[in-house]
């Protein structure tokens, strides 16, 4: 029985984790210089990263599950690095609810798979599947829910935003690394997932909703780290969505690219520079650009991959549209060149990723539905941006800014489960000797 396994996917991720570990650990080491808490920070971080490494190479279900839980435990200590911060405590409690459910579901899913195939390893399960061609739908659905939870998808997202109450390097480790594990989990079971139709629908719909809403909410937030956190929620949504659509190579590319980008963005968040939402000036011209690039890109993708990719085409067209609407900042030839280079890079990267990870069966119905959902959201976004004075726009802006009032219920649940300790001395007439310490 093989306890560990290594393949192209895992090697890619191991290299990424090694690079990130080097950067994040070095950063932490320097950050905590002179602090008595330095060994504690380094210790739990190394524990976390070691557990991640084990999870990546684990083949046996028990090893996989134990290392998965171990990541969670180490991360818990890091998120609660300043236990005197009441909001850090609250966020950690919220995460505990989500993490415990996800771990339980993962265990249930592994048990279901074991009962179905009689083999307690990942490779064994996949072999059994390729031999029989039957899919354990129940096991896959539990797995998908576990992945959604561990990728902090809505409505279980609140903790991800609120753990900015822990040091920057912890945020970076979490957002660039650990939160991706849900994606890795599903990619490891990719062949089974391809055939589990209901699981794909579930994953696709929930992640598309979460991704679209989170990215809109991001644009209404006011601080750098919270914006980055909402962006993570949306990017994880897109990664899971790509998995649901069968674009495993794209999901892998997304996972790696997002990790590096987000690690950089968090670690450099101290640099004072403005954040700009690019605004579009003339909406009709922009719409024209969007339609033109949508057609062209669909064709380009069809030529490159042999089939249409509606969601990918919509997202790519949105970037190109925005690039072209900024043409006044460069020059026309330059912006067209930029757009071409952009598409070329995208295609090249996707094709390279396909060398590592095979795509699954494309799910064109779900794909079209998701593409339509994104177009609708973009229309909403553009309308909100263009009509700032309109009462409806104002109302939606306030709602989005408040995170659509989803997380408040979760906060109450967490506080109900873990009430605040009574003895906080907060509102006694202040006792000087105590406040001194």
């Amino acid at each position, binding site marked *: 029985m093989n306890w560990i396994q290594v393949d192209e996917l895992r090697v890619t991720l191991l290299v990424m984790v090694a690079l990130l570990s080097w950067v994040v650990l070095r950063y932490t080491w320097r950050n905590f210089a002179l602090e008595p808490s330095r060994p504690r920070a380094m210790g739990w971080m190394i524990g976390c990263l070691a557990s991640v490494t084990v999870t990546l190479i684990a083949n046996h279900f028990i090893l996989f599950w134990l290392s998965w839980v171990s990541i969670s435990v180490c991360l818990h200590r890091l998120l609660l690095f300043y236990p005197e911060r009441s909001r850090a405590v609250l966020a950690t409690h919220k995460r505990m609810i989500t993490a415990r459910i996800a771990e339980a579901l993962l265990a249930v899913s592994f048990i279901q798979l074991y009962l179905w195939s009689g083999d307690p390893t990942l490779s064994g399960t996949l072999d059994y599947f390729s031999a029989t061609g039957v899919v354990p739908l129940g096991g896959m659905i539990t797995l998908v829910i576990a992945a959604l939870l561990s990728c902090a998808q809505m409505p279980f997202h609140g903790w991800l935003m609120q753990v900015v109450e822990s040091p920057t390097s912890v945020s970076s480790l979490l957002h660039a690394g650990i939160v991706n594990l849900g994606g890795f989990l599903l990619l490891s079971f990719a062949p089974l997932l391809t055939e589990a139709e209901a699981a794909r629908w579930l994953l696709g719909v929930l992640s598309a909703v979460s991704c679209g809403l989170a990215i809109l909410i991001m644009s209404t937030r006011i601080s750098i780290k919270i914006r980055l956190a909402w962006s993570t929620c949306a990017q994880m949504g897109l990664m899971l969505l790509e998995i649901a659509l069968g674009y495993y190579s794209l999901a892998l590319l997304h996972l790696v690219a997002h990790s590096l980008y987000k690690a950089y963005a968090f670690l450099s968040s101290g640099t004072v520079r403005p954040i700009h939402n690019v605004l579009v000036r003339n909406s009709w011209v922009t719409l024209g650009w969007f339609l033109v690039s949508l057609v062209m890109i669909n064709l380009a993708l069809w030529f490159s991959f042999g089939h249409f990719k509606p969601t990918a085409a919509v997202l790519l067209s949105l970037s190109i549209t925005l690039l072209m609407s900024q043409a006044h900042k460069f020059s026309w030839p330059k912006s067209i060149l930029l757009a071409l280079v952009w598409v070329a890079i995208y295609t090249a990267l996707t094709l390279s990723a396909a060398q590592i990870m095979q795509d699954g069966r494309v799910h064109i119905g779900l794909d079209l539905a998701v593409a339509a959902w994104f177009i609708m959201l973009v229309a909403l976004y553009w309308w909100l941006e263009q009509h700032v004075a309109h009462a409806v726009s104002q109302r939606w802006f306030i709602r989005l800014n408040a995170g659509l*009032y989803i997380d408040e219920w979760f906060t109450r649940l967490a506080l109900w489960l873990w009430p605040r300790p009574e003895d906080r001395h907060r509102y006694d007439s202040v006792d000087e000797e105590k406040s001194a310490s």
Partner: protein
Amino acid sequence: MSEFIQLARQQCARVAPMWPLAESIAVNPCWFFTDKPVERVSAIWKYVSDIDLVMDRAFYRQQLLQGHLDEQMLPMDATKCLSEPQRLPRWFNVTDIVDQLQARQRKMLWKDEVVLQISQFCGLHTEFPERFVDESQPDNGLYRGWLTVVREDKGIATLMAESQLPDYFDPLPDDIDALFHMLADDWLRHYSEDALNYYLFALLIDVLGWSSALRYRDWDPSAPHHNIEPVLSLLGIRLAWDYVLWQWAKDTSTELFNRLSQRFAQQAARCQRDCERVEQSQKILWQCQRAYEHKQLLNYRLASKSEGAQQAYPKMQAAFCIDVRSEPLRRALDGQPGVASIGVAGFFGLPIGFRSQGQRRPQLPGLLTPQLWVTEKDVATPSATITAIGELLDTPTSSLNAVEVLGLAKGIGLFSAHNEVEATDTPQSDLTINLADNEQPLLDALAGTLTSLGITHFADHFVWVGHSSHHENNPQRAAMNCGACGGQSGAINARLMCQLLNQPNIRQALSARGIDIPERTRFYAGLHETVTDRILPLSEAFPDAVRQTFEQASAAVRDRKQYPQTRSGLNRLAGLFKKTRDWAEVRPEWGLADNFMMIIASRQRTASIDLDGRAFLHDYDAQQDPDASILAALISAPGVVAHWINWQYLTSVTAPTRLGSGNKLLHNRVAQNVGVFEGNSGDLRIGLSLQSVWDGTQWRHRPCRLQVVVEATESQIKQALDASPSFKPLVQNRWLYLYRLAEDGQLIQMYA
């Protein structure tokens, strides 16, 4: 009752402004309280919001044991007084009282949520002006915007588990004046003026960070008491929350409301007495504080007039900013033969600002307004293409796809250095300034600076040295830069000084004003990089003699100075240089920590004394200032700047959680970089981060008020104080101490 709004305005005017991150300069958070005795203000802040302006009993007890207090200045029973535990009365706002009366272990606390809601809204108002700013309103639409948001927001009621709460925002008037009138006529009708003053200030100080940021919004240095409308609206918003909670309590529970109104009335009735009790209890603390400062002052004995001999004809002169970090460097320079250093405020008296790529930034103290604008031709900038493409990652519609295309490329940044040094610190060409129109004010400025320094002899080489801190990824970097240059690098001012004074026509014009600069004198510009204590050339390369002198002085400083987490020895410069390029570095330098004295005197009185990098040194020759006008200018400009820096450091130590900005590892830039949150909770943060004053085991800044020493006659000092309305109350009310430096080197305390 129109007086109520008048009281509110008075309280708002007491908030000190806070500059945004990129131009951040040190401010005394109590600046508009300096008309009152420091002990009284300390009691008020302690009483209304538990903010300390003086250290606690445990601190002084320890200092007393270690012999750091001058026991002659202490009462006999000091030890006993310091060990008595104290229970002090405190003012509580309605939110606080409701939190105490309701058992909210399983619910969010009102105080936390109210501050968070207001804080997040102020962020929205700043970050999304197109949605919330209404120019037609005196407060830019702050109050109306808040009403819209709070009436719409369904989340608060869910979160607080009080479903009727939103109903209470509907009856609030749409106009801020009407709100104040309504509350004055009804709810707050019965309270005394004293009680209302405490209450209004207690509300304001709950959101001190945003009050300070809003206070800056329309800040006009020439009329500091004007333009308080945004702060007034913020106070109105905070007051409205208390009122809403009051009304809600009234309808929700009779028992809760009875206890609430009873407690509120009780504290309103005895607030004056309570605050006096706090003042009484803090009396011993201020006595200890004085003894603590005095003991340290005894360590420094300045030279008598006959002792210190200054080189009459130096070969080289270097003018430094008065910043305390230049003191060790100047000492090392002055120890070398033929070298004389000069101390002057680091903007060198130039009333300028710097313009680059449509951005303007001041290059002078925060109390002044730029009159002239300087530009630079060949500023190297990140290309527009890179910036525009990078913005795709920030924009919601494109960011999903942009991550896949650009993410890997961005990841390269993880492994490369980021070199954030300003382009102005590595000049490529001369600065551009429109001399034709601005010759007169520039000549005035140059003549003013040179006269006030009292230089009678110009050496062959004269270097103007600005200063700047080269390090990365620090939202509060401006706090380490030149405060006299508006939190910027002093390079622009040094370069402009050198550029102007080397021009023959300017020299001619100065000569007409009685300032003769010999033809052989060349001016140079340099930059004191304060992380590594190097002096970098900014103009044409220094002559060898100058370069060597500087290098020797820098090396001498590096041999002795204590730097954060760097070992001494041969590789020290390399180690320090590494810090300038490390994006994870949170303690690039201690900055101005441990600042203690300001000495306005001729250099010969201080040159031979080791002042431990704790003194601001400004050159001054009283004989050239018979009417004390130069002295008056010195105490009201550099003197006030030094006091602001001193009080920023002091309060960041006495109240690190309220007047300091907390842990740097949690800093989170907010709303167009107006400031930082710690994590995402609570108010905007003011002051210095913990890392700037704390080394992991102890304070790096000894909390002392500034001790100002002036070498002049008694009557000159009195005259200067009378001519400086901003500085005189600081002395009168003990926000700093003033001494006259006698001929024999004695310090004689002066009272205003």
